[in-house]
């Protein structure tokens, strides 16, 4: 589904070039449930932006569903994002003056689906996440967990191949975090690739594969069975390394 080959990215500010990604090789298959970890500055947000076609890269290649993603113009990138990728954010990023239903329906608006049709589909998705009664509420009238569920519904409505979640539980308490992770797992069970960026070990531990970034390179990749071992190792680490 996703294939990165020797991916480089640097940010130029004035005379300084900050080399953020220094040659990432990564394969993520269809239907995987992956978390990306790393300390701040390790390049995980940059990687997510490139995966989400929100940012371009300098060298290497990025294939999404067999298609090379490189130097797309804005319009084409917007269409690809709309069709292929669903985003979930830490701060939900719901549009404040639109109610839950309108927020969920928004991606379909950009697909030129008629108003009635997209509202109907949005209601189905809200119903699926137990938010039917909240359809007419503004984001400010919803709890954090509800907001994130609305955001997930919005990410799913365009039936994307991939869900990219940037710290999806960062603004939620533990119980709600687990709820959200359950939902993401359900989504993954339906065959959608889910990629989560997080710095919380317990959240990462709920995924099936952990990719650790370190100084712009993939430090280690831990899969399934190794997770148990990983969990134990995490316990022995000092709290300092959590940051």
């Amino acid at each position: 589904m996703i294939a990165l080959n020797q991916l480089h990215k640097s940010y130029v500010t004035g005379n300084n070039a900050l080399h953020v990604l220094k040659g990432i090789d990564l394969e993520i298959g269809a239907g995987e449930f992956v978390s990306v970890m790393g300390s701040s500055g390790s390049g995980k947000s940059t990687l997510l932006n490139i995966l989400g076609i929100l940012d371009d890269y300098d060298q290497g290649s990025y294939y999404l569903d067999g298609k090379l993603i490189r130097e797309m113009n804005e319009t084409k990138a917007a269409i690809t994002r709309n069709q292929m990728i669903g985003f979930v954010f830490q701060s939900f990023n719901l549009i404040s003056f639109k109610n839950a239903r309108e927020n969920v329906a928004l991606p379909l608006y950009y697909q030129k689906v008629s108003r009635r049709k997209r509202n109907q589909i949005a209601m189905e998705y809200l119903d699926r996440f137990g938010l039917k009664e909240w359809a007419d509420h503004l984001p400010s009238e919803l709890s954090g967990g509800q907001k994130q569920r609305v955001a997930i519904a919005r990410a799913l409505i365009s039936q994307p191949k991939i869900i990219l979640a940037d710290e999806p539980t960062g603004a939620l308490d533990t119980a709600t975090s687990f709820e959200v992770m359950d939902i993401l797992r359900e989504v993954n069970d339906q065959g959608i690739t889910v990629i989560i960026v997080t710095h919380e070990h317990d959240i990462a531990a709920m995924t099936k594969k952990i990719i650790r970034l370190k100084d712009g390179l993939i430090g280690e990749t831990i899969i399934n069975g190794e997770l148990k071992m990983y969990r134990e190792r995490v316990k022995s680490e000092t709290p300092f390394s959590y940051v």
Partner: protein
Amino acid sequence: MFDADIWQEIFSTIRKNKLRTFLTGFSVAWGIFMLMVLLGSGNGLQNGVREEFADNAVNIMWLWTGETSIPYKGLKEGREIRFNNEDYDFLTTRAEDVDQVSSRFYLRGDITYSYGKEYGSFTTSTCYPALQEMERVRLTQGRFINDLDMREFRKVIVIGDDIRKALFKEEDPLGKYLKVGSVPFKVIGVSLDPGSEENRQAYMPFTTAQRLFAGGNRVHSFAVTTKMVTTAADAEAIDQRVRQSLAQRHNFDPEDRRAMGSYNMLTDYIRTMKIFQAIKLFVWIIGIGTLIAGIVGVSNIMLILVKERTREIGIRKALGASPMSVIGLVLLESILITTVAGYLGLVMGVGLMEGVNFGLEQMMAGGGGEQIFFRNPTVDFNTALAATAILIMAGALAGYIPARRAANVKPIEALRDE
């Protein structure tokens, strides 16, 4: 671009920022209001002055004779110059710059008009039928002098309304005979110049007068209309050419204004109208300047709005909004604010000027206002249409820079958690 969603979004942002939208719209409305008031006033002034010219054709020229004051080709000064019927033939057939001609023969001394027991002293204008058009003679009754009257030396007369009142009182004057001196003339028409205090003038056929009052082939003065031109210099040149040709016929220096006097209305008319064109241009410049201030205001507000909505725009782009749809969102809002506000200003401006016009007309109808140099201070439909087009373009212009900025919002930066 015109579906309900985009409008719903525009209205929801407007609702959130009522005061700001109002202030922005106000500056645009004020700009267009001022433009309309200025243009209307300019038009009013111009119409008022044009009214002053309305008593005659604007291209009328009068020619009259006197004594030479400059020696010319060995001839001494102090010679009397006299026009004659050949000059009429020359002006009508051979002078290229001249369009219509009317000769005039002055009757000597006081001529008494009488009808029954009533009598009075009035001015007699002897003329050709063309004079009606040239001096804009308006008739309330009957007809003006025609070619047949001229050919047959008919004793017919068109009397001013004051003469009718003085001699005929309530009686219908048409077909009645009044005496000019001792000669009976048949009244064929009554003239009335509503702009003038004096309607004490009568018109009779030139040919009749010349024969009846022993004029020989003498002509005292000419009224002619010249070719229409658009510049004062051209009008001046026509004046010169007419003078030259007549000077040649009568052997006097063309520069000798005592030998032959002339007044060319067109030169003055063109000069005056040029002034008004300049005023109009000036008014447009000021008006557009005011409008630009309003547009800059709108543009400013839209920039702030885009900055405030950076995050929202970032979300939209992440969800698949194309740059075009983002531009449309900002541009339409800008056009909406400027168009609605501008239209309100337009309506108020035009309304005010129509109100002033109504007041003026009431005053005129009441008999006053003769001295007011201000008529019909309204803006015509085409100008209002042009202003509307300017408004919509202005809105697009005001929205363009902010819209470009919105389209260039990087979702990554917009969505970064601060």
